[in-house]
């Protein structure tokens, strides 16, 4: 019997997402792949919005999926993000103290 | 007004005369006129009527009540048309009248 392949062993699969960037006015279609990291996903979403409709800010961006903030180096496959899932991308603004 | 009913007239030369006719035909009712430029709301509480007879006094002896439609872009309430008059009635009043008629 062959061993089952894990998600990481497959060729990257296309994962179209429903994404919203920070305070933008509209959700958009953003295609990513299973191999993309959250940092790449955030950049892909930001590409359509940041500096175009939402003013660019000098902060890291974080992907939120199912209410959870995902680590920047986690891949789409590892995060269990499925095609047509919704994600939000937010600026990671440090708490003002 | 709790139950305003009546026509919404599109702006045309005859609007003033039509309003006068409606006022004549409803002596006991306050007629409210709201002018919005392209259209004029004419309304009274619960029920108002206009008759062909009165309209003819203002618009000429050959005026046909069916032509009222050419000026009326909308109305509030139910419009009841007969060959001599148009009555606008609130739905509540209309229902009560129908009920009374069938019982």
């Amino acid at each position, binding site marked *: 019997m062959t061993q089952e392949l894990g998600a990481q062993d497959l060729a990257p699969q296309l994962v179209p997402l429903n994404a919203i960037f920070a305070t933008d006015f509209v959700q958009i279609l953003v295609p990513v792949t299973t191999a993309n990291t959250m940092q790449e996903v955030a950049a892909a979403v930001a590409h359509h919005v940041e500096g175009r409709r939402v003013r660019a800010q000098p902060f890291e961006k974080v992907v939120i999926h199912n209410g959870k903030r995902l680590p920047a180096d986690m891949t789409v496959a590892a995060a269990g993000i499925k095609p047509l899932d919704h994600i939000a991308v937010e600026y990671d603004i440090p708490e003002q103290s | 007004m709790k139950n305003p009913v009546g026509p919404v007239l599109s702006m045309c030369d005859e609007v003033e005369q039509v309003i006068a006719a409606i006022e004549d035909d409803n002596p006991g009712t306050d007629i409210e006129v709201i002018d919005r430029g392209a259209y004029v709301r004419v309304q009274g509480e619960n029920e108002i009527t206009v008759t062909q007879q009165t309209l003819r006094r203002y618009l000429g002896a050959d005026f046909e009540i069916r032509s009222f439609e050419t000026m009326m872009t*909308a109305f509030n309430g139910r419009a009841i048309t007969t060959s001599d008059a148009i009555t606008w009635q609130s739905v509540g009043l209309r229902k009560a009248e129908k009920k009374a008629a069938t019982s």
Partner: protein
Amino acid sequence: MALLKREEWQGFVRDVDWSYSYVDDSAVFPEWHCGTGKVPREAWSAWEEDYKVSYPEYVATQREKEASAYAVKSALQRSTTFDHLDEGWKSATKMHFGGVALVEYAAVLAELKMARFGLNGAWRNMATFGQLDELRHAQITTFFGHEFIGKDAQYDWTQKAFHTNDWVLISLRNLFDGMMIAPNVVDLAIELPLTFETGFTNLQFVALASDALESGDVNFANMISSIQTDEARHSQQGGPTLEILVEHDPVRAQWVIDKAFWGSARAFAALTGPAMDYYTPLEHRKQSYREFMEEWIIDQFVHTIEEYGLKKPWYWDEFMRGLDIWHHGLQMGLWYWRPTLWWRPKAGVSKDERAWLAEKYPNWEKVFGDKWDVLIDNVNANNLEATLPETLPWLCSTCHLPACNATQSRDGTWRVRDWSLQYDGRTYHFCTNGCRQIFWKDRDNVNHQTLIDRFLAGQIQPMDVGGILGYMGLTPDVMGDDPDYEAWTKDYVGRPVEGISLAAQS
């Protein structure tokens, strides 16, 4: 001796039902076409219209209306009125011609359906006048729009729009197929004549006439007012139908109205909202979209349905909050995705215009101002590229409009939220909670693909911007663009700028 009065003989015109014996009643009036449901078949014999009209009266009056509408048209034909109209106003008319002409024809089919399957002879007769009326509206709108093709190719979409797969048209076809041509006649009479024609069309045909007249477009104002005089009459098919349905099945009556109202409200937010609050020149605006909605929908329509014994729809609070948001979000979407339009959308956010918006909609600056500011700065930095789309907006699985409705959190922030659900193994997204609830309640749109679904399924080739525009039927001579960037950006030239796209420099 004069002719007999209508009252003396019209009873015979109305009394034309009989009992079938060669075929079954249920074959002549199939349930899914007729939708009598819980209403006993014989209950429909009580159906009676208040607004009565006879054939000779009809043709005589309609002849007068046609003569007058065409007289205005020909009087203005030789004038230069059109050439002096504001581009924004012209856009409002292009949107109207393309978005309305063939909807009138859909209404022809709807009225023909009621003329065939209506459950009472008097109802079928009234629908027979109704189908003629709608034929008038389709023809006059098409013909008046046709007149301007020589001056502006975008008017070609008067006839073409609904033959394309443009996202606006997919949305409108979905709505109007569902509430006009396809439903059973009981639902239809409540959705189209009652909800749509006594409520919403007044907004586009009576209220917008005010803006048209102010904008100097007498011909257009006259055309739409004249059309609405017919609607006022044949829309009266709704009342008697609703009365009977409410008596026997109030739950269904409520649901049919709720659903039609919501769908109409979404569509009008997309079309009438921007036309009134952004395209109509500021100095010509009579009232805001919200104010017109309050006058024609909130007060009049809601009062009416309450009189019939029904309640405000369950989503009322969400709808009311949407009055300050929906059409502004859609305006920004229409503008940003402007190459997909057959008109030239005005941004309409100069300082004066913004002051007006902020006065009419106190949250406007907070929710939309920051985004327009970035767009303005990009235009002023010659960064037009950054103001044009490279992907699709997400389209709602119920209304097919972009998911662009921000709501306020308890902490005061405004965010566009995810309204989604899982059904049969897949995820659907919606623009609002209302659209999600409607989808769930009747799942009409299951297996019906949004433009996003079609794109992802590979039906749109090539899978790029060119492919999408081609699929939508847009040609370079028609594609929308801002009519005058300077008009709304010059107020802000020279202000300090940061955080805008560097697209142009890269």
